[in-house]
């Protein structure tokens, strides 16, 4: 009975298709028609510009804290584009690009980030969970939804989005394990953007890749160039197809980079060098796609300008609508809404007490004014 090496399923692949120069690996290139190709670019640009506008409004004090998506557009658009409308998206808090693609209205996002619960409304047609903040805890919901899908023999799949930091959370492990045991149709999509606030990837975990965490569950795991929208798309299509065919879950690690602050409350100069950011600026996802599309003559200066104008207009109209809308959102009683399907008496009493206090306050103010 000698000492011997046993071989669990230990392969972890890396996939890249579109390089920084805008050149592609023809063999690996997924089939995409011209409309899809320009659609990818449009979606990524739209997310980038929206993000910039959010940042700018936040700096003006019009919005609260949020987590910019800049740099991760390919990871999000490449993956979400692999889904059908009837599939499910389980986001964390940085999935602006993916949610915009899915149809989340800019107006709602503005309203949400301005601090109104009403902004969190989700269209009945959108199978997307609300954005959610506790890091690493949402993959369990994705797994649960996926299990429901399997139970109903529905053919949807679920994509769960999270970051590199999230892989340290116990819930992540539990979600991976349950999904693997139950062969749930779920894709675990990790956006390894190299940082969890100030903690760099290599202090988050000692493994060479995050993709290899799939090995603990004999689950397929793949690392992709997360700034390469084609690689992300191809890997997600493969995983989604496997899930839809009953082949169970996949872990995809998208190697990308957070080019902006963690959130608007963060100061990255405290923990990372400008050089690192510059290095990654060169690898950023929009530029290389633009180069590729230009080489195909699908994009040029003029077309880009048209795109930019379109997007700008859409953003400004949404902000205007949101601003107008928010002026109507004055009833504080809204905070009691949607806690339960049927409001228990004590909550109604509290709602009324609040009204009473507010009315009294208003009366006092009016009195003071008339004095």
């Amino acid at each position, binding site marked *: 009975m000698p000492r011997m090496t046993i071989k669990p399923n230990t392969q972890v692949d890396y996939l890249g298709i579109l390089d920084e120069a805008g050149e592609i690996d023809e063999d690996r290139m997924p089939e995409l028609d011209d409309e899809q190709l320009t659609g990818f670019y449009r979606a990524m640009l739209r997310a980038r510009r929206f993000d910039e506008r959010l940042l700018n409004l936040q700096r003006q004090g019009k919005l609260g804290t949020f987590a910019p998506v800049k740099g991760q557009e390919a990871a999000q658009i490449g993956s979400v584009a692999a889904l059908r409308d009837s599939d499910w998206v389980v986001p964390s808090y940085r999935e602006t690009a993916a949610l915009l693609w899915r149809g989340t209205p800019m107006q709602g996002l503005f309203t949400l980030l301005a601090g109104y619960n009403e902004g969190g409304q*989700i269209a009945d047609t959108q199978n997307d*969970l*609300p954005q959610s903040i506790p890091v690493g805890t949402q993959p369990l919901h994705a*797994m649960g939804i996926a299990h429901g899908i399997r139970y109903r023999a529905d053919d949807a799949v679920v994509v769960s989005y999270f970051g590199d930091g999230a892989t340290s959370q116990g819930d992540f492990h539990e979600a991976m394990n349950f999904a693997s045991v*139950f062969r749930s149709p779920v894709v675990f999509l990790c956006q390894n953007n190299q940082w969890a606030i100030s903690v760099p990837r290599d202090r988050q975990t000692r493994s060479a890749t995050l993709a290899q965490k799939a090995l603990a569950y004999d689950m397929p795991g793949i690392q992709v160039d997360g700034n390469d929208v084609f690689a992300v798309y191809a890997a997600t299509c493969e995983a989604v197809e496997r899930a839809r065919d009953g082949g169970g879950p996949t872990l995809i690690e998208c190697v990308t980079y957070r080019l902006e602050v963690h959130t608007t409350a963060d100061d990255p100069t405290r923990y990372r060098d400008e050089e690192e950011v510059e290095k990654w600026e060169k690898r950023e996802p929009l530029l290389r796609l633009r180069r590729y599309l230009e080489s195909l003559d699908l994009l040029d200066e003029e077309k880009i300008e048209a795109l930019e104008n379109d997007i700008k207009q859409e953003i400004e109209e949404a902000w205007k609508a949101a601003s107008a809308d928010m002026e109507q959102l004055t009833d504080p009683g809204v905070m009691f809404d949607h806690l*339960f399907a049927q409001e228990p008496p004590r909550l109604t009493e509290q709602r009324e007490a609040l009204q009473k206090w507010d009315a009294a306050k208003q009366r006092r103010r009016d009195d003071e004014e008339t004095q």
Partner: protein
Amino acid sequence: MAELTMIEALNKALHEAMEADDRVLVLGEDVGVDGGIFRLTQGLIESFGEERVIDTPLAESAIAGMAIGLAIYGLRPVAEMQFSGFSYLAFNQLEAHAARMRWRSQGRFSAPMVVRMPYGAGVRALEHHSESREAYYAHTPGLKLVVPSGPRNARALLASAIEDPDPVIFFEPKALYRSFREEVPDDPESLALGKARVVREGSDITLIAYGAMLPRTIEAADSLASDGVEAEVIDLMTISPIDDATLEESVRKCGRAIIVHEAPGSFGPAGEIIARLVETSFYHLEAPLRRVTGFDIHVPYFAREQAYLPDADRIVAVARETLDARA
């Protein structure tokens, strides 16, 4: 009508719910093949198959999180925590997600799920197997908390909990699992959540209890009755939301009240009830409201657990002090 233990009654409720509604799934550790470590889920996997009765890996947070996902998808999961003492591993899922899904999504999604868990001391169990920390859940907005006290109401309340459109934490008094039998109607029965019931009428003092403390409280009432004191006994059944009206009415009538629970007293449910009664019925009070509760300690190992638990003696002693108090 059959005479059932609480275990059997809850098992019946699960069978009925699964029979009636294919959205109902049961999940947890050992709930399937083993039939649950208390045999509470016995027979379910045979009747409904392993697609609906799911033996999960050992991870409480995942059980809760999976139930949340299933509920969002439109199913009606009934998740089991093997003991309430292990539910803290799932606490974040319950607080951060189950309790917030309807609210966070502005009504688009919700988490209609039941999380069953045996709680309480008195069965000579190991550490962590005797906790009563219902206050954690009662204090969490967005959750309901139900505690049955006998086979019949256990079955009816579980039926309602499964039908409820919101997440319900269902605390099962394990000390009563097999301690007595009760007639349980053959036909389905449900009991509205949020309603307490007057178990025994009286006009001298109100004794408020729930779960495994109810029989002891009734015993105390009987003992008081033999001395000519008529105690009214109220079984809360739902801890959150509390049925204020029933409590108020009784306490206004009696002017004196005692709240009994086995959870540690400090920051426990009795404090909430006292605060509410003070707010609503202060001028009807003829004596200080008092509580008879577990001590502010961990439940001792089983050689001393009965010394930890409130018993009829203590309830009577505190009732007497309350009755003797000058008005």
